[in-house]
């Protein structure tokens, strides 16, 4: 008779869930290690793994060194009330972010290889929650230790600071999971109404608002109507004290200077963690449908994330702005391929594109503010006049915007070969040369980045009525810089088409490889700029030595640099075409 092989009913849920789930966690951990070792056995894998390990080790060492220094300096005690307040704010902020994140992960998140298997297995939901909490807390261990080390630097007692902070960090996943299940329950109860609530948007807007608040408090302009309040006045606010009261025990453990203060707070935190785990496991909520939706949603998002930047993660919309994408690059094969990419940008980026423009404007503003500050201190040191200071500030702001803006926008958009890796079979079959396909794929993104940066450069200058030569030069140089960067980035990517998403295993190996590939890109970019700027610099030096007017000398030098950079771009595109031709579709690890 079938079914005689299995044992009787299972025991009630323990603190760490069912034995089979503990076995699963153990096997998965062992498997991840085995995979890491297997990959690291290859020469390239070993090199990348070593580099990744070195990077991580150096970072952790710097943290520990800082922590040790902090502990030594702790003989000079900081203001206890302020330290307590800052710790409370930090804990409350992390918990709030975690709860906002729970809006996106309603129910219980289980990866796709687990969900159908575990939901159909004879396990209680409490056991599944316990397993998930253990997994989440295990993943948090490393982060908790790092956060503990960072806090130990500033704490009155390094050990207490470490323990208090680590305990707080291990409690956060439990609160986040409880919130996710309760949000899911609310959604189940509110049914249609909840479906209409844009919870993910709330989550994103909430996160952005918190981020902006933090930026304002730290970097807000002083001596202006928008000046942020002093830390002391925030600390003494009765309203904030009441609001932050729930974070008090953990904060108190973090900033404690003696055992008598630390012990009760830490004990309370431990008891709370135990109770919170039990309570979360005991929640009587049927989260299965929401969990299935969440898991499918996360799988979709991860899949999109593997295709490129943030903009690529959006779903495509059918009718962008009610019109079809224009044929900006002609009606030939090149134009058709480029239009395809343009359509992807317009149909997918939507809100992201708008956010990028806003981010670009903010970047322009901050680069202007920062360059003003820097120029002011530089001018004070050099003793230059106010006009020179203003010029220095403006040119510094433009240069900053040009470099940071281009890098930021290119890494955010990523409508390039990353998003086409799964379609390389088709791309390779197109009756067009490799370089043409290569350029056509990256041209729309380059154009878009140019438009946004040009807007960021020219709009503030036009508003101030002071468009100068360097503004025009920046706008003329940006498309070449952008094209060179995107082309190098994609050429390297086509030679080493590997993608990594958060949560994947072999993190050290990926970290090392990412470092090598980034250095390679920077090397090519630096080489291109050097080759392009050298003739211009020589010409400038010669013309200045021959007493030509500065305007003439600069115009001639920049023109030569522009043409040489354009030639470099052509060369990089050709190399990119070669990389495309050499791309082996059988190698695709997408």
């Amino acid at each position, binding site marked *: *008779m*079938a*079914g*005689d*092989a*299995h*044992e009787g*009913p*299972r025991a009630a849920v323990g603190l760490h869930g069912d*034995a*089979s789930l503990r*076995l*699963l966690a153990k*096997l*998965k951990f062992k*498997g*991840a290690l*085995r*995979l890491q070792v297997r990959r690291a056995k290859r020469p390239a894998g070993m090199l990348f793994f070593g580099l990744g390990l070195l990077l991580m080790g150096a970072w952790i060492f710097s943290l520990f060194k800082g922590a040790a220094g902090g502990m030594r300096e702790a003989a000079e005690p900081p203001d206890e009330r302020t330290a307590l307040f800052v710790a409370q704010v930090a804990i409350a902020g992390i918990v709030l972010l975690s709860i906002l994140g729970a809006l996106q992960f309603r129910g219980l998140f289980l990866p*796709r*290889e*687990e*969900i*159908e*298997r575990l*939901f*159909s*297995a*004879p*396990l*209680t939901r409490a056991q599944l929650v316990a397993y998930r909490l253990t997994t989440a807390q295990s993943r948090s261990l490393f982060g908790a230790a790092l956060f503990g080390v960072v806090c130990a630097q500033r704490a009155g007692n390094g050990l207490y600071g470490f323990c208090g902070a680590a305990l707080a960090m291990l409690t956060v996943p439990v609160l986040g999971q409880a919130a996710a299940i309760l949000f899911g329950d609310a959604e189940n109860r509110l*049914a*249609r109404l909840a*479906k209409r609530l844009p919870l993910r948007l709330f989550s994103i807007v909430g996160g952005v608002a918190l981020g902006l608040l933090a930026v304002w408090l730290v970097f807000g302009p002083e001596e202006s109507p928008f000046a942020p309040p002093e830390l002391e006045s925030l600390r003494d606010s009765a309203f904030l004290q009441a609001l932050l009261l729930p974070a008090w025990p953990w904060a108190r453990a973090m900033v404690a200077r003696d055992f008598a203060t630390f012990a009760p707070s830490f004990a309370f935190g431990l008891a709370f963690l135990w109770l919170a785990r039990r309570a979360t496991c005991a929640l009587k909520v*049927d989260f*299965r*449908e929401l969990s*299935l939706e969440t898991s499918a949603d996360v799988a979709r998002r991860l899949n999109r994330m593997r295709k490129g930047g943030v903009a690529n993660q959006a779903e495509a919309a059918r009718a962008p702005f009610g019109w079809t994408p224009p044929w900006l690059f002609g009606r030939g094969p090149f134009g058709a391929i480029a239009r395809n990419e343009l359509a992807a940008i317009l149909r997918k980026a939507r809100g992201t594109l708008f956010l990028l423009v806003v981010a670009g404007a903010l970047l322009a503003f901050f680069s202007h503010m920062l360059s003003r500050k820097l120029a002011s201190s530089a001018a004070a040191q050099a003793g230059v006049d106010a006009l020179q200071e203003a010029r220095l500030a403006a040119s510094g702001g433009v240069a900053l915007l040009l470099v940071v803006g281009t890098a930021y926008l290119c890494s955010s958009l990523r409508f390039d070969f990353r998003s086409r890796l799964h379609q390389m079979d088709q791309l390779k079959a197109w009756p067009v040369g490799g370089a043409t396909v290569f350029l056509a794929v990256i041209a729309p993104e380059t154009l878009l980045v140019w438009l946004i940066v040009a807007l960021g450069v020219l709009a503030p200058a036009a508003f101030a009525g002071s468009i100068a030569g360097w503004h025009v030069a920046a706008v003329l140089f940006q498309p070449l810089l952008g094209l060179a960067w995107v082309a190098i980035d994609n050429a390297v990517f086509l030679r080493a088409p590997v993608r990594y998403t958060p949560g994947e*295993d072999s993190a050290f190996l990926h970290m090392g490889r990412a470092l090598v590939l980034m250095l390679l890109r920077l090397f090519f970019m630096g080489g291109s700029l050097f080759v392009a700027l050298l003739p211009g610099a020589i010409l400038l030096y010669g013309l200045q030595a021959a007493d030509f007017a500065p305007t003439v000398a600069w115009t001639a030098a920049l023109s030569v640099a522009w043409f040489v950079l354009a030639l470099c771009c052509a060369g990089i595109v050709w190399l990119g075409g070669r990389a495309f031709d050499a791309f082996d579709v059988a190698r695709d690890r997408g």
Partner: protein
Amino acid sequence: MNASQAPALEVLAFGKTYETHRAVHDLSFVVQPGEILGLVGPNGAGKTSTLRSIAGVLPVAEGRILVDGWDVALHEQQAKSRLAWIPDDPQPFDTLTVWEHMEFSAALYRVREWRARADALLSDFELTEKRDALGGELSRGMRQKLAFACAWLHEPRLLLMDEPLSGLDPRGIRSAKQSIQRRAEAGSAVVLSSHQLDLIEELAHRILILDRGAKVFDGTLEEARARVAPGSSLEDIFFAITKDPKG
């Protein structure tokens, strides 16, 4: 109720609604031990929703489902310990070896003395050589075979399979068919959902046809032939019974 004489599966007035879409309504059927039920229907007929609800992956909000006499909603664990669910695209754990999948399945369903049985199953499904291969290294067909082996390990009283043969090579298809038949002969009830009508025709003792969430036929192939036309194939029956959405 713990009735070993109870049907292996009893579905009573089951319904499933997604927001405003009614995927399945008023569905009732019974599967006896040793019986293979072929579940067929056009896309969107509600086959997978039904199977996932029986498996306990989706909650049962309407009607009742009893597995070996245990109500899936009220005695979830008892019911689940008696069934095995193989989805249409089984996902193994990337970092676990084939053998570790068996080890985990044995722990999950509390199978005693599982090693010899696991060895035999791996041999049956031609996975012995892949014993130490990682889940992420398996082809589509191998994944399917591994899912079969894991599902067979605890000798379930009820087997639920959604498109079980997709991705298998001819040899794999033959061994899977034989294995399903052997499981039925050993007393397991099997519910087999597939668009491969020849497979259903070959294996199923009884056929349940769903269309737009409703049962439109439940009976043997002979009964279906008697209703449509003598000597007709399951394909003919399928087209005769289900409606063309275009009218």
